[in-house]
């Protein structure tokens, strides 16, 4: 498998490895399928809305749109299965099998490996959330230092994970309702419909408000974080969102001298260094496009 350097240098700037090519392709397929599924599904959920027939017609109306929805859904489900298989196989081949070779297999060690997986929430996430709340409610001016993956990213990972499971499973039942009701009672179809559409609405709102805010609209990344395309995060964003991990990587690479100072709070819009006065710095719109301060693009 291709080895990715932890830090890439380009034009004198450092970029930190976040996502390999496989993950980036998975993300793009997921993003595209989600958008198509939402566009072909929401006109049905809100079929009495004035815009619904127009949007539905764009996708070929009730003759074509359901087919598009099903094919796209199938692609997403295949992606889901692929992702789960890949994650499991990587854990097995890279962590559990070596352990077995060394003859150190035990239930305790294996469960430790599973708990230590990057996406598993831990106590640091809880402390980070509390720290963030303190910062957002003006009790402190210091934002918590994020680890390699922050609680936001874990949330952005598990929410679609659960969503895809629920929506995918119920979607399959609704799709194959005649077959399904050979086994399950017809009343369950009602529940599948509710779960499918309500969970889909939750997922859509979650992604298009929360996720898009974090990776597109937040002032530090606007108009778009690029990490989902390049797989590498610029140094300033890395330091802003993942300071703990940033310091660790810099030390690993032997770059202790070049470590940026802790970020404290958000940097002011106009790029002035944090002043000691407790006064908000003024913002001028004209300077913003050249603003290099970007927050970490959060990608699930």
């Amino acid at each position, binding site marked *: 498998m291709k080895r990715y350097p932890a830090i890439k240098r380009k034009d004198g700037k450092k970029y930190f490895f976040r996502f390999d090519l496989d993950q980036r392709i998975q993300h793009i397929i997921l993003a595209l399928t989600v958008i198509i599924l939402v566009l072909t599904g929401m006109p049905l959920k809100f*079929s009495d809305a004035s815009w619904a027939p127009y949007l539905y017609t764009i996708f070929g109306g*009730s003759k074509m749109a359901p087919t598009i929805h099903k094919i796209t859904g199938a692609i997403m489900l295949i992606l889901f299965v692929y992702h789960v298989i890949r994650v499991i196989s990587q854990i097995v081949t890279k962590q559990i099998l070596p352990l077995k070779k060394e003859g150190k297999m035990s239930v305790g060690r294996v469960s430790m490996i599973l708990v230590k997986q990057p996406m598993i929430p831990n106590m640091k996430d809880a402390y980070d959330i509390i720290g963030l709340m303190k910062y957002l409610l003006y009790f402190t001016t210091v934002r918590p230092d994020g680890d390699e993956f922050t609680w936001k990213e874990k949330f952005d990972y598990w929410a679609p994970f659960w969503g895809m499971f629920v929506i995918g499973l119920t979607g399959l039942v609704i799709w194959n309702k*005649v077959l399904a009701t050979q086994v*399950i009672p*017809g009343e369950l179809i009602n529940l599948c419909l509710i*779960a499918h559409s*309500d969970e889909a609405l939750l997922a859509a709102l979650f992604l298009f*408000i929360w996720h898009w805010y974090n990776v597109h609209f937040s002032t530090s990344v606007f108009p778009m974080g690029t990490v989902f395309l390049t797989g590498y995060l610029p140094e300033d964003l890395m330091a802003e969102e993942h300071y703990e991990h940033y310091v660790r990587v810099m030390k690993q690479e032997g770059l202790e001298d070049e470590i940026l100072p802790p970020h404290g709070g958000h940097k002011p819009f106009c790029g002035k260094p*944090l002043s000691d006065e407790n006064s908000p710095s003024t913002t001028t719109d004209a300077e913003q496009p050249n603003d290099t301060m970007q927050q970490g693009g959060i990608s699930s």
Partner: protein
Amino acid sequence: MRLKSRFGPFGYIGIFVLLTIYFMPARVFGADAGNCLVCHKYPGLSRVDENGEMRLLFVNEEIHNKGVHGKVKCEGCHTDITKIPHEPAKPVDCLVLCHIIEPTSEQKFSHKSVATSLEDSVHSKKGKDGKEKPFSEDMPTCKDCHDDPLFRPLAFVKKVRPGVAEDALGRCRVCHTQEEFITRFYNHITTRLHKSRSPLNIAESCARCHDDPELVARHNLSTSAGGSYGQTFHGKAANLLDESVPDCLDCHVPKGKSVHQMYENKDPRATTHKDNRGKICNSVDCHPGASADFANYKVHAEFDKKSNPVIYWFTTFFIVLTGGTLLPLMAILFLDLLRRLFPNASFSRRKEK
């Protein structure tokens, strides 16, 4: 002079009548033999009736003539009117013997048989025991559902656009010579062959009563039928103007019967009777091969704690989940935006860097 000698003064009246007819605009010839349009042609002709309700008395001749009753004379239905000017007219009784001869029986035509089936159905004013149902005045009569202009001609024979298909008319002309007859009977037959209204249209017609909260409560109905239908895929597709989805009638009217022959759930003749339900869903045109369990899908599921506790709590779970997830995140998002405006503000004194 021969005129005078033979018919007396009536001869002059005859000439006068002929002249009048001659100078009358051609279109008046339609149904208006009784000359009703002399007054009723004026838009805005109206009065306030005894109940204080505004009654519009204007007859749109163009719409009327295009409708299924375009050939029927006014007095054919308004039988109580015999002279002009007339007393306030009684509501039309659709069961009067029409002046039209029904071609297969050569008898005068009547809609009476429709009324007979309706009286036997769930929409009857009388209960099984022959007694008047409570609130029988709520039960539909002909005019509650039938409003002429909604009917439209069939659009088949290599034609997707609704309207009279010229190619189809050609087939009629082989035998029938009268153009008038051809168009009228073409319309008459095709409206009955076709689903003459779109599913949405049908659902809306039924919903006029079945979604009326007062009527639903008064008759102890388990659902606002139109509303709950709208929550199903069938209803949603109907909302999106799909014409191929089943509407109320496809499931509630027994196969081969008419809309006037719907029965209540407990009646073994009813399609919705628990022994028959499976057969509606798994018909060849719909969900062939569907099991009887398939038909237990609740088409008219209401979000109601009492009648559907499972659906109620299941939906509530998702509402809470959605709110519980999004509201805190939106709060964080909002605070985050605000925080970016005042990055250095804090209640507590900043510690040393």
